[in-house]
């Protein structure tokens, strides 16, 4: 089931690459249309899964990754439609394809641990996924900013200069994506903490709940992520860290998010291994 959206994202990636290389408006429209189709197919797949298991497929990591890819595609489409800038598609689609492949190759069993059966859990996961999708966009915008900055500052106006959006556009979009991501991250982490505190007395022997502390890499990295983005927002408003510095922070932040999401989420964590 996850193969169909994966293939469609592949088609879309090719269209974005052709648009990027040739700057052909028709290829650009085809790219947007194909991504829209891919996102719709993905919506359908997630909808089917939701009907099947009677909840949004959040309870196994591969499904969570797939839902993240879906959110990323939707938020990128939103960005593209509001700014009419298509150049970032070539950077976003490889991320979507990579993550969707991981998700498609490691089928997860969607069984909800009774401990998790609480509205808090769904809010926790949904907020964090929205935060991660925003940070992924911010990271790509930051990367794009750095590439464009280098072209203009080094006075070498080449291939990328003609294709990438203006610096200020990238900076403004980056700032917006980080702010939105930070709000979701804050909500997600806060809900997680409150819910753990509430759940612990009810299931004192649950190994996951016992492991919920800063010693657990997943929680540690989540807090680190929050610290990095909080600093980035503070530095932008108070220290004038816009442009390249903000771009760097958003790229670093996204790398931490990705580390936490995949290798740590899959292999290292002791607190988030429900099932």
């Amino acid at each position, binding site marked *: 089931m996850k193969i169909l959206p994966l293939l469609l994202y592949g088609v879309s990636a090719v269209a974005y690459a052709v648009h990027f290389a040739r700057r052909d*408006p028709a290829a650009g429209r085809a790219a947007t249309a194909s991504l829209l189709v891919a996102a719709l197919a993905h919506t359908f797949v997630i909808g089917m899964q939701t009907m099947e298991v009677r909840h949004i497929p959040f309870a196994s990591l591969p499904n969570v990754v797939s839902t993240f890819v879906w959110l990323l595609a939707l938020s990128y489409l939103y960005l593209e439609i509001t700014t009419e800038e298509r150049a970032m598609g070539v950077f976003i689609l490889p991320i979507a394809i990579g993550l969707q492949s991981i998700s498609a190759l490691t089928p997860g069993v969607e069984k909800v641990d009774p401990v998790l059966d609480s509205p808090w859990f769904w809010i926790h996961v949904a907020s964090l996924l929205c935060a991660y999708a925003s940070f992924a966009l911010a990271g790509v915008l930051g990367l794009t900013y750095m590439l*464009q900055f280098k072209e*203009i*500052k080094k*006075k070498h*106006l080449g291939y990328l*200069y*003609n294709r990438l*959006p*203006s*610096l*200020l*556009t990238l900076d403004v979009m980056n700032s917006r994506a980080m702010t939105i991501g930070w709000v979701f991250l804050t909500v997600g982490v806060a809900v997680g903490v409150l819910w753990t505190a509430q759940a612990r007395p009810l299931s004192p022997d649950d190994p996951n709940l016992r492991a919920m502390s800063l010693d657990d890499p997943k929680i540690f990295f989540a807090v680190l992520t929050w610290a990095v983005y909080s600093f980035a927002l503070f530095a*932008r408003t108070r220290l*004038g*860290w*816009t*442009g*390249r*510095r903000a771009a760097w922070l958003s790229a670093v932040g996204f790398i931490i998010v990705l580390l936490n999401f995949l290798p740590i989420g899959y292999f290292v964590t002791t607190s988030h291994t429900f099932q």
Partner: protein
Amino acid sequence: MHVFLLGVSHQTAPIDVREQLDFSSRDVGAAVETLAARYSAGEAVVLSTCNRSEIYVASDDLERARQELVDFLGSYHGLPREAFESHIFVHADEDATRHLFRVAAGLDSLVVGEPQILGQVKDAFQVAATRQCAGPVLTRLFHTSFGVGKRVRSETGLGEGAVSVGFAAVALARKIFGRLDGRGVLVVGAGEISTLTAQHLRAQGVGEIVITSRTAAHADALAADVGGRAVPWSELRGSLAAADIVITATGSQRPILTRADIETVTDRRRGEPLFIIDIAVPRDVEPSVGEIEQVFLYNVDDLQAVVQENLSRRSAEISRAESIVSEEVERFAAWRRSRGAVPTVVALRQRFEQIRRAELQRLEHKLGPLTPEARAGVDEVTRLIVEKLLLAPTAHLKALPDEETQLAYTEAVNRLFELRDESPVAPAADEVDAEQPNRTRS
């Protein structure tokens, strides 16, 4: 019918000759009317810009057209033929078509790929069209040339990248700030390039343009030129604070803006970018200013390098543009050839129609008793049979690959159906042409 072109351009004639043969400063419409009246085809378009004066006509006799156009040029401009004859070029048919398509695409321009020429070609055609001087051949030719210009611009990078220092600066500003609405501009010192750049920026909708110069009169003049506000030289540093784009062009021997000056400003800008264009030689801004984060400093050499790079990128696109031109020349040639078959096609149709009517007439006594509906039916059926019979021959005659084959076919058809002795067919040519609407790419 041939397409014939005679003209001078920056490639064949020096400026003084082009000036003498210029139509644009006089009444182009009157010239076109005079020309069209002289030729049996009645088709003429005059394209006159500062780089070229070209006359396009449709004519049956190329040598006569050449003689008449040379005479016309001489008499219209009051010049002896010797004054310009060595500078003119003439092209016919495919060469003339290719020339116009290359002109419309910007391939024949002084600055390859410049966009104004397409508009000038359109205007030239419009002048002829409104005076009924552009017949079917030239209408088709010029409409196709507009399509070629559009195709080359959208399918190749021939018109891409700024090719003057002023435009290169504006393009850079747009890559830094995105939209330039409301951005503050400070011009320090007046000069040709700084004036041009300020004017380009004004056209992009920037906010206030503040101008300062050591000589207050220069600042005032430039302010009036670009719609800005002149301030005294003493306010230079104060004005820096409100500027997003700074253009410097003074004759000063020493830098007038130091790193310390700019750092004072950037500290207060909270990370907003600052774009400085230093056009002065020697430079007005300390080179180390370019090292400040969020400051983009370009001097005149940097901008020249950008222009050069854009120019070479444009030349790399020339071959792609030329192949589009060739494609369209071939297409137009096929259409023109198909027109060569028109008189034969018309004659053939008239012959068939004549036979049909004659036969109906002959059978009148048998058809007489039929009801009006049945008679109409007979008429309709016979008409349809004739239409069907003519469908394939008409298509083949119009699609013949070259003039030689066309001649052979026409001859054969003429003999087979004994067309020669029939009534003259030439006046009916336009009638058939009207059936085939002009295909325009717009």
